[in-house]
């Protein structure tokens, strides 16, 4: 029986075939999924902010909150669960601009910065991005299917998209 594991904002989980890991209503946050097709181990992290080093010291100790530390932690958890780094690929979604605020304010561009920071961290770790659905102005619910690595994206008034 497949089990569905739901993670919240600034949250992380790793599981395996046949389970599904989901997070509901990603806005400007990013859902980064990792998958190893041989062991069928998958993981998902829901990060809120691009960079753990750019905020006030002591403001948070939750690694899953930031793209840089969250992606690192997800990889560590994947490896610990038995995945092999050479086989792990990533898919990312989210990073929307929920309000059309002009200029380079935090509200205006945090989605883009989250997406860029996620891509940069994955690149630095040598993990290939095989699916990317970031940006635009709408929220997304995502599901990672550990059976086959499919990353299903749902949005209000839009057809399902599978990465």
């Amino acid at each position, binding site marked *: 029986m497949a089990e569905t594991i739901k993670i*919240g*904002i*600034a*949250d992380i989980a790793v599981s395996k075939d046949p389970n599904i890991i989901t997070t*509901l*209503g*990603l*806005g*400007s*946050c990013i859902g980064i999924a990792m998958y190893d097709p041989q062991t069928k181990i998958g993981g998902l992290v829901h990060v*809120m*902010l691009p960079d753990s080093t750019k*905020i*006030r010291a*002591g*403001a*948070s100790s*939750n690694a899953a*909150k930031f793209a840089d530390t969250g992606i690192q932690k997800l990889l560590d958890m994947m490896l610990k669960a038995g995945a092999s780094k050479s086989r792990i690929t990533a898919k990312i979604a989210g990073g*929307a601009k*929920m*309000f*059309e*605020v002009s200029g380079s*304010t*935090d*509200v205006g561009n*945090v989605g883009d910065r989250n997406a860029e920071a996620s891509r940069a961290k994955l690149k630095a770790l040598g993990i290939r991005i095989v699916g990317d659905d970031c940006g635009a*102005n*709408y*929220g*997304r*619910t995502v599901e990672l299917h550990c059976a086959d690595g499919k990353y299903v994206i749902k949005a*209000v008034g839009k057809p399902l998209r599978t990465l």
Partner: protein
Amino acid sequence: MSKFESLQEVNEKYFDVLKEIGNIGAGNATTSIANMLGIKIDMKVPAVQLLSFQELETAICPEEEVIVGIFLGVTDDITGSMMFLMRLESARYLVNILMMSPDNTSLEFNEMELSALQEIGNIIAGSYLNALATMTNLKIQPTVPHLSIDMAAAILSVPAIMFGMDGDSALMISTEFGDDVKIDGHFILLPELDSYDKILEALGIPV
């Protein structure tokens, strides 16, 4: 430069003061919307909550339920932003009164209705900020409102991220009013950290 380390510190230390500001602001906002629409109101005491991000995502409704979010910048003596959120049924009810189309039950809004919603948001947020300005004797101006209708968690990710830069919790003020139909409204005030110093000092509270 703020005397505070983080919003979390302010929220925890001055919870009672912020709660009072929230009560007065929300009361004022509710009264002006009732006056504008000519409806009788029966308002409950607003609930002021300090929530973790996980709690914030489901504080109004389940994560995937579609809600209306209105976002405005705040300028002048205080800088930052604020949000007003409500469920679709509440938004439909208010728009129907304003547009004089009482039988419309659609949960989609046309162009005209969207600008009506934006105007409602403008008035609600404006009177909330007015109350704060009167209390503190500070100049507070809202900027043009921005509207988003989407999944609750996606809209709430915006304030979560703003609070997230400083800590792990968010302050939300929820109010319920109405005559026949209950209308829910939720305010999230997001001042810059140094604006808190100004607000508290203006109220004569030692920081």
